């Protein structure tokens, strides 16, 4: 299945956990070092959770699974996130 979406679809699920907007954040891929807006990452949302991949190398950078009362978040594919904050 390669009908991926993009990082825009992550925004609601992550705003449930954090108070920042993930789509405007810059994330760096551990695997290839590319840094880009999370809004432009590839998102595969037809799995049991959301799987986010780095566009150039398609390595997994983030995974999120939600269940009643719980969430699992794996960000081991990201070396950093640079977040936009109010001044």
């Amino acid at each position, binding site marked *: 299945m390669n009908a*991926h*979406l993009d990082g825009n*679809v992550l925004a*609601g699920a992550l*705003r*449930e956990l954090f108070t920042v907007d993930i*789509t405007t954040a810059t994330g760096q891929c551990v695997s290839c070092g590319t840094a880009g807006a999370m*809004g432009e990452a590839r998102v595969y*949302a037809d799995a049991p959770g*959301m799987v986010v991949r780095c566009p150039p190398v398609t390595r997994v950078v983030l995974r999120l699974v939600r269940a009643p009362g719980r969430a699992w978040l794996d960000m081991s594919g990201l070396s950093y996130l640079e977040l936009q904050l109010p001044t």
Partner: protein
Amino acid sequence: MARAAVLGRLTWQVGTVAGVRDETPTARTIMLDVPDWPGHQAGQHVDVRLTAEDGYSAQRSYSIASAPGSSVLELTVQRLPDGEVSPYLAEVLAPGDPLEFRGPIGGWFVWNPESTGPVLLVAGGSGVVPLMAMIRTRAMSGNRAPFRLVYSVRAPDTALFAGELANRARADAGLDVTYVYTRSTPPGWPEPAGRINADILTAGQRAQPGLSVFVCGPTGFVEATADLLVDAGQEPRTIKTERFGPTGGQQ
């Protein structure tokens, strides 16, 4: 609209359907009354959640069609033949019904009405909805940034907001609207039906300095359009994209 307003964690809330408006035979706009709506940016979306009596729930994202500045939020929903959520929203939901949602969501695919640079909007099918919010916001804020909408539809009767776009193309100075028909054209249309191409996207001109591009539609449409634009010399970082699909994306 404060761009960097302090956000809280997002929680579900309930709005009340104030009215519905048919847009095409398979799409309609839901007007949702949301007291204390904080406002939104043009291009943002909401998540909608439906819950069955047995507790099964399904959620989808829908782009906001209306401009900010009102407590009535408009969502334009295209009914998908095998959809789990859209048939209910596009056929069953009636004025007075409650609707569970959360938002506004997403700060990446947004147009800032304080910006003055030229903008190219490219829509595939119901991908026009967040772009319509940008066009409406531009008009409401008195912004004169040059806007060009290229709107790809299968056939004339599947085009959303056709009447309003025709009026705005006449009345909103600096707004240009170009249709691309992929299956069937209106009678007397000068071109045969066909896919979007580089000449249509660039209007035969060289890459425009300072041009911002927003592309929204099904994944294949967005990828093809972004590739055409990059091949035509448009800087990739100036192209913002939003894809939708049957499972989780904007519809």
